[in-house]
């Protein structure tokens, strides 16, 4: 059986004795050849060469061709901010007018990107080249920005308000975003992609009721369309979406991808009920970026050993691998997947170094001069859920000004990790006010957040 067939068999839910391995090397692929993130996302030759290097070094059963959730938004006129070590982020939201937030516009279908727009031709070109060069052995993933994340890119943080204030608008905008996703899926399948992954990190930031109300229909429609195109499908989410795993399964994907914010064993009991494959969830930052090779091997072996039955199981990073992930860490994971018994033997006496928390000094929350809002994110510049959580916080700061203090702690900054551990932060992104958790993986509406901050203003000691 070729590596590709092994993954296909898992996606067909056939009994397995081994789990396939899908490294999500997006911008990280460029690091292997010394290209920065912007170069691999804008230069077809560099992207292709980098992906071939991923294929050679990490021996994947499946691999994505490009991991950039801003690609569709860019075609639709969102301005991007480019980075050297991460995918670009969205700077402007064309469907939001700050002078008139109630001007809620749904773009006409004539604006759905054609195959010549933005960076789509570049991506299709590289997909075709990857198909020819590696497609016989390796399953190729075409990644598409999920409708909710795309709607947020277009409308900005106000989409979370719109879900309360104008339900019809949100439904219409998501229907438009779903049409964009289906169109993109058509381009990607035609260019040879075997699996179409709908990547929608923001799904972790809404309640199950809101999922059923707004997401069930567009996602079901998208997965039906991918099935009609003859491809496999996946539904990627980031953040703590535990509450939404069941409703995600009900939309009919062949597989679901989760990150370390979700307990893999717990999630698999749910996905197994629906006979949906589950992929995940090697921690991106603590392990892949900041851990060493043995940490990565040990984690992977333990992850595999959690499941006696490997049916419907895929091993992958929690999401797009950090750009600077040391090569040996991903190789370690690959080895642990492919030669589990040997690696289990190699790391059986290995103990991970304990984290030193003694140097972390937390603020004296009982004696603050003014309310302190701390936002703990993976990285607001590269993770969409974090971008919009941080957006909610900076919006609040703009309204309250000097009355409150606001700070972001990014998990991707190594020095912040002990602080995040000491604070006991369980999920990213989270918002704490005066040291107390108020929002965990749930982006607050403007009104609710303002209420919390006003309350803190009355209780904070002066």
């Amino acid at each position: 059986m070729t590596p590709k067939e092994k993954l296909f068999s898992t996606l067909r839910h056939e009994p397995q004795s081994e789990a396939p391995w899908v490294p999500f090397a997006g911008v990280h692929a460029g690091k292997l050849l010394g290209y920065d993130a912007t170069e691999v996302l804008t230069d077809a030759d560099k992207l292709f060469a980098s992906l071939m290097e991923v294929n050679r070094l990490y021996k994947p059963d499946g691999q994505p061709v490009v991991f950039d959730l801003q690609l569709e938004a860019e075609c639709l006129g969102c301005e991007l901010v480019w980075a050297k070590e991460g995918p670009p982020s969205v700077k402007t939201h064309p469907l939001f007018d700050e002078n008139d937030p109630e001007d809620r516009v749904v773009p006409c279908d004539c604006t759905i990107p054609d195959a010549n727009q933005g960076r789509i031709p570049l991506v299709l070109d590289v997909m075709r080249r990857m198909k020819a060069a590696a497609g016989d052995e390796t399953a190729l993933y075409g990644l598409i920005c999920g409708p909710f994340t795309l709607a947020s890119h277009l409308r900005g943080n106000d989409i979370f308000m719109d879900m309360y204030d104008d339900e019809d608008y949100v439904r219409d905008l998501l229907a438009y975003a779903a049409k964009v996703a289906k169109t993109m899926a058509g381009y990607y399948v035609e260019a040879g992609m075997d699996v179409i992954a709908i990547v929608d990190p923001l799904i972790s930031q809404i309640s199950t009721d809101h999922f059923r109300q707004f997401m069930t229909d567009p996602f079901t429609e998208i997965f039906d369309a991918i099935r009609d195109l003859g491809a496999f499908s996946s539904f990627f989410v980031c953040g703590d979406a535990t509450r939404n795993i069941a409703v995600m399964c009900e939309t009919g994907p062949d597989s679901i991808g989760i990150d370390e914010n979700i307990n893999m064993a717990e999630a698999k009991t749910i996905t197994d009920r629906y006979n949906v494959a589950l992929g995940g969830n090697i921690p991106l930052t603590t392990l892949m970026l900041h851990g060493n090779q043995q940490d990565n091997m040990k984690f992977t072996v333990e992850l595999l050993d959690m499941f006696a039955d490997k049916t419907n199981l895929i091993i992958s990073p929690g999401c797009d691998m950090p750009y600077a992930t040391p090569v040996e860490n991903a190789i370690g994971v690959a080895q642990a997947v492919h030669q589990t018994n040997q690696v289990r033997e190699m790391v059986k006496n290995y103990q991970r170094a304990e984290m030193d928390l003694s140097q972390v000094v937390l603020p004296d929350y009982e004696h603050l001069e003014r309310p302190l809002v701390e936002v703990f994110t993976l990285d607001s510049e590269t993770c969409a859920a974090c971008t919009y959580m941080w957006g909610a916080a900076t919006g609040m700061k703009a309204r309250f000004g000097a009355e409150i203090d606001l700070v972001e702690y990014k998990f991707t900054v190594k020095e912040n990790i002990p602080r995040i551990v000491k604070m006991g932060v369980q999920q990213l992104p989270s918002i704490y006010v005066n040291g107390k958790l108020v929002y965990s993986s749930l982006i607050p509406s403007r009104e609710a957040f303002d209420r919390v901050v006003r309350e803190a203003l009355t209780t904070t000691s002066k």
Partner: protein
Amino acid sequence: MTSIYLITGFLGAGKTTAVNRLSACFKDRKIGVIVNEYGRTGVDSENILSGQVTEITNGSIFCACRADQFDDALGRMLALTPDVILVEASGLSNPASIDAVLRRRPDNEMFIFRGVVCLIDAPRLHKVIDTALVVPKQIDAADLLVINKADLVSKEDLKTLTADLSRRRPDVPLLTTAFADIPCEAVCNLKRIRPAGADGAAHSQDLTLRKALITFQPGTLEPTELKALVAVLAAASWRVKGRVTHPDGRMTDVDAVGEQIRFSEADEGRPQNHLIVLWGTGQAAARMLRSLPEQMPAVLRIDYGS
């Protein structure tokens, strides 16, 4: 071999005058003209002698969504083997994709693309460049910049404007004119200088553009009411255009670009009761239109587009 020229510029910059002027430059040649102005009703057709006009309505040349219409119009025009084709782009369109659109035509050996002339509205540029996303894109795609209506600004303002534009595009010629009086040699010698590959690659939609069609109850709006309404709407939008029939049966054509408002009595054509309003993010038209049906009983309905 047909020479193709593209005339761009924001609404009201003087593109139509420029097309008429340029067609005179080629008066001994066989000229074809493709115009594309939202809501235009063929006003300039008769001015183009021995020319051929194709209008693309309800679309935007080089907005990807209407590229097919432009392709068809160009194909029909090329079949007539003119020496020159002047293309007037929509004032709201981003011309960045023109090279890509032309290059992928199967008949691309029948023509040579001579370049983009971009008209700049001297009195309004500083206002629109920050609010209308397409304006900087139009300037960036130009091979010749023409500061038009220079007679309407002070010498000092003109100097600042010229300096700003030269800084932004030091690589292209910059002319200053009034009434789009462009010297023929500037255009006859035009050469497409934009490097290949820089075009179209990142072409994107502009979702910040909004449009609405106001429909009035037939024959209910008095001329004074119409004028008051248009004055308010024009100040809050890029463009207001349409025709309204009054209670006494007379008809008024409206054509407003920002503060330049033109009302003219229409003596022929079909009675209509519509105004098209085009605006962008940051302008107050949407807010105004939301409350309009309540304030003005003559309004039958408002349809929004995007």
